[in-house]
């Protein structure tokens, strides 16, 4: 194995000269900062890093990164990034998307990217609202949400990105939030290191159109009661004094309970590497309604063949079976005859 020597960089090297134009106070700023501060530590090169985005507030992200980047069309970034990643396995390809981009107009591309498992890191900024179009409800908005397009309240049940990703067979699924830089960085690092498609849902505050959407979970005051930190190999407990825990019930679901000597031993120990996604799914469905204790961290991290690697193997097998490419032979492969 060769060691890559990458020259030392700082946040400045990863920042483009473009003025950042999100609304003041937008959660996107802290996500940008977390990533720009983390990238110098990842031992990767700027010229081998590409950010691909669709449409939405979050999708402006590539313009602010001093890397290669593509700001594309609504919902299609996972497909476009797949074409790039499979033809250029040498690159670090990040997809930056939002809840409307990834789950509404681009839902189909997202699930197929996840099941294919090409080497992509998908960052899904979830602010539960359409920001760029000025405040319509999104596929992750809570039911009954009053917005410009739903003056009497929205009728649809929200889509949970983690459940969706697990259902699509994603090999790396995690959640983090814009109020905790070191948590974001730890999750982003893991997502980048994962060989395959990783999906990271980031709770992101849109202070203009949906302010405080997650404050019941991630504000300083709520965290102890409502933020469940997932740590691999550890019992899933939370609360100011770790007084709550996640236990299995006899339906196969998981439930939150107050712990005491009688049930402490039943607390579920978190295992990111379970081949069967059922446990991770149950964790994603812990919350019966909004504003309830919510797991943060890595739900699932398993090894499955990466899509691009498999393409290379098939190409190698073709060369093995049919010999090196020979155009002149190809043009005669359907039978040929000679005329003098």
């Amino acid at each position, binding site marked *: 194995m060769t060691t890559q020597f990458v020259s030392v960089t700082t946040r400045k090297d990863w920042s483009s000269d473009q003025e950042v134009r999100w609304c003041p106070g937008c959660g996107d700023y802290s996500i940008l900062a977390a990533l720009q501060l983390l990238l110098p530590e990842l031992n990767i090169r700027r010229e081998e890093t590409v950010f691909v985005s669709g449409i939405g507030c979050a999708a402006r992200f590539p313009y602010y990164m001093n*890397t290669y980047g593509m700001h594309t069309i609504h919902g299609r970034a996972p497909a476009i990034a797949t*074409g790039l990643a*499979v*033809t250029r396995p040498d690159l670090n390809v990040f997809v930056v998307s939002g809840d409307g981009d990834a789950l509404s107009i681009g839902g*189909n591309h997202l699930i197929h990217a996840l099941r294919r498992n090409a080497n992509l890191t998908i960052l899904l900024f979830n602010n539960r609202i359409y920001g760029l179009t000025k405040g319509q409800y999104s596929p992750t908005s809570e039911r009954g949400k009053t917005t410009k397009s739903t003056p009497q309240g929205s009728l649809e049940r929200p889509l949970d990105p983690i459940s969706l990703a697990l259902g699509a067979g994603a090999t790396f699924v995690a959640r983090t939030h814009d109020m905790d830089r070191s948590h974001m960085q730890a999750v982003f690092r893991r997502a980048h290191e994962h060989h395959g498609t990783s999906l990271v849902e980031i709770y992101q505050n849109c202070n203009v159109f949906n302010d405080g959407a997650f404050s019941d979970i991630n504000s300083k005051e709520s965290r102890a009661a409502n933020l469940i930190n997932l740590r691999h190999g550890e019992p899933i407990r939370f609360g100011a004094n770790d007084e709550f825990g996640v236990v299995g019930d006899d339906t196969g679901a998981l439930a939150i309970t107050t712990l005491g000597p009688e049930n402490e031993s039943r607390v579920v120990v978190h295992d990111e590497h379970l081949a069967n996604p059922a446990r991770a799914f149950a964790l994603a469905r812990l919350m019966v309604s909004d504003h309830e204790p919510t797991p943060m961290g890595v739900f699932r991290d398993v090894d499955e063949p990466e899509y691009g690697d498999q393409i290379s193997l098939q190409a190698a097998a073709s060369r093995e079976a*049919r010999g090196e490419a020979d155009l002149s032979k190809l043009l005669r492969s359907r039978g040929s005859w000679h005329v003098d």
Partner: protein
Amino acid sequence: MVVHEQSALENVVLRFAGDSGDGMQLTGERFTSTSALFGNDLATLPDFPAEIRAPAGTLGGVSSFQIQIASYDITTAGDSPHVLVAMNPAGLRANVHLLLPGAMIIVNGDSFDERSIAKAGYRTNPLEDGSLDSFNVTSVPMTTLTTEACRDAGVKPRDAERSKNFFALGLILWTFSRSLEATLEWIERHFANRPTVAEANRRALHAGYHFGETSEMYAPRFDVAPAPYPSGDYTNITGSAALSWGFIAAAHRSGLPLFLGSYPITPASDILHELSGRKEFGVITFQAEDEIAAVGAAIGAAYGGSIGLTTTSSPGLDLKSEAIGLAVSLELPLIIVDVQRAGPSTGMPTKVEQADLSHALYGRHGEAPLPVLAALTPSDCFSAAIEAVRIAVTYRTPVVLLSDAALANATEPWRIPELDELPVIDAHFANGPNARTDDGAPAFHPFVRDASTLARPWAPPGVAGLEHRVGGLEKADELGHVSYDGANHERMTELRAAKVAGVASSYPALVVDDPQGDATVLVVGWGGTYGSLAAGVALARQRGAHVAHLQLRYLNPLPRDLGAILATYERVLVPELNLGQLARLLRAEYLIDVASLHKMRGAPFTSTEIADAIDAAIREKP
């Protein structure tokens, strides 16, 4: 022993027809191969239902394959079959109207039972009611003879019965003085894993051949001599295969990897199939979740430095429009192949039409011009593919290449080019800074243009110092930053249009086919109607008309010499398999009147239709 008369002919049109399950396409293809090996010029026209298994025995379920073989250069599968092989009453009824009096009909007599006759919509048995009296009809009990031949061969009765198409093939090979060798070899190879099926087919083939030789009721025999060809190696090629190989060749000559993003759709899927089997050429094929992802992935691959290709048929082009607009804005090379079929909507999926021209030219929001070209013949698909890549790569632009359902499936002999005859395509990647910042430091500006082509640099990731962002938002001239400045937007719009218009400077000069040199009527066609228009023009000339023919390959930008050529003729006739899309374009572009001739029947023009229209144009001329 019967002595057969052997008639030497210059050309014969033969049509196989039967139920979708009767193997007519296979029979046609085998006969095509044999004739090509023999050295005939040929052209084929497969015609089959969109349904995988349309109701057996009905007109809707009829699958046909027409082939013209000739001892001279031909361009179509012919108008009217000299010989029709009908495996069932429906096959007869669906095709008999194509025949001229005196044509030969060979039917599988076993299939003319009461039920099948009724299913085909006949009230009485056409073999007995005198309705076929003007034809030369031979009824052969093909099913009986085939099952007979397969007896004691360990073949299941069902398999034996299914071999009857090989009986028909054997009979036809005998009729056309062809040997069985190539077919026997093919059976050997193709059914290597199913020895009893192979045996059944072999026996059926021999039985058919011997039946021709020994049967007294069967008299005429045709002999079509080889056509004179320039020397070289030849192969038989379909439009789909030629396109696929053209892209592989373009990749080879440019040194770029080829990436195909595609979603299955009739009749474009054959390109996906062909390229999927060629991974040793460094081809990556990606069957996407939909048409949008297919073109999107191709754009991603193009950004990364591959030849990004997406293939589809008409409805798929609708879905790709937004992404194609993105490629126009990003100014990245991209090739979109549209194998046109009859529309609108699902239309007639297996039938030919040329009705996507306007869509290819204009089907995007905003000012989004791009080069559009169309392949002329099955074998021309090969060089059209290379040309599409050349334009896309040289000008950093998406290019639409139009083929159609007839070209895709039709076959013709093709002289295989030597590799060094193929053009070299230079990707000319950016490899260093091309500008300076305000304080004089070297910089890379992704929208600085080449002075002659107006193309911007293509800078795939991986080169330090060339990091840059591109997007669908308007870009500042040269710098490439997001810009909402009106004057800049106008300039960028004009630059993109000028770049595409400039592609015309790289075309070869147009060649008008006008052998007499004094024609007053010019027939202008485009793309896949080349064969039928050339045949129609030839027929008109036989009838005494002086007429010129020009077939356009480049639809946008139009060739610069086109205006002057159009102006030379008193009358311009534009036959199209649409309601006059090129005609409208020519009127708008050159302010001349053109006569539009249209056909929307899911079938190519016949020579007679074209020749009659030419006669009328000559009579009507001002």
